[in-house]
């Protein structure tokens, strides 16, 4: 089983990297189509687990303890068989 975890800054926390990337996309010619850019990170892990609920719970615990800093970041977990 695979866990795909996306981590990004919370809404309301200024995402400087997203802003800088947006600015450059505008300059490259995508100003009309790009409304907002957020830059985050993705962590993909193979799990030794066959139950989706357990996998989700364990991945959430990993995010709370280590993978995300919940003072400034949100996380989103997708489990794939």
């Amino acid at each position, binding site marked *: 089983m695979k866990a795909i975890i996306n981590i990004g800054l919370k809404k309301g926390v*200024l995402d*400087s990297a997203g802003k*800088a990337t947006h600015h450059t996309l505008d300059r490259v010619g995508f100003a009309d189509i790009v409304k907002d850019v957020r830059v985050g990170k993705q962590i993909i892990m193979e799990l030794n687990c066959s139950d989706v609920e357990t996998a989700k719970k364990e991945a959430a615990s990993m995010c709370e303890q*280590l993978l995300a*800093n919940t*003072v*400034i970041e949100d996380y989103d977990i997708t489990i794939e068989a």
Partner: protein
Amino acid sequence: MLVTVLQFPGTNCEYDTKYAFEKLGAQVQIIWHEETQLPQGTDLVVAPGGFSYGDYLRSGALAKFAPIMNAVKEYAANGGKVLGICNGFQILVETGLLPGALKRNDNLHFISKHHHLKVVNNENTFLQELEVGEVINIPVAHHDGNYFIDQDSLQELKDNGQILLQYCDKNGSNKVLNGSVSQIAGVCNKEKNVFGLMPHPERAMEVLLGCDDGVKMLQGFFK
């Protein structure tokens, strides 16, 4: 006075820190992160600057699970004094010993220069030798020094006198350096025994090297 300086893989300010505290008369011991106990009789634990664990995942995030950190947490819980400088500050916020978080600098640059700081509160061990409003000049060198805290918690910091230092110009007016909320450069915990700051007082110990304003800061721990 025995100062214990933590050393993680990637720490690079442990010897400057040792030099600074020895200059002030302390006995200093550097200990490896895989130790599980602090030396007997430790009067102050310092988490120094550097790039622990290569800053992987987030600055300070991996260091919080180093074996020695359990001992540091216990030491702090029993009222022991802990100081985090730069990466050490990042480690202490990640560990939860200090409030808030440190984000990438707003301008995305690594900022390395001397910068003025204003003393906001001196009713604590660390800054007792300085006056409130006093302006000092201390080097900064960081990529992730942009202090963040939500508005409610910021109010708590203010109410409890936990904001120690703010970035300012030479006249003491607030000046944006890295995007920190309220230009915060350093904070302490509510109990006032755990301190953290992004600037490097241990790099401001000799006039010959530009400035010795760090002496007055670190001296507070000797009173």
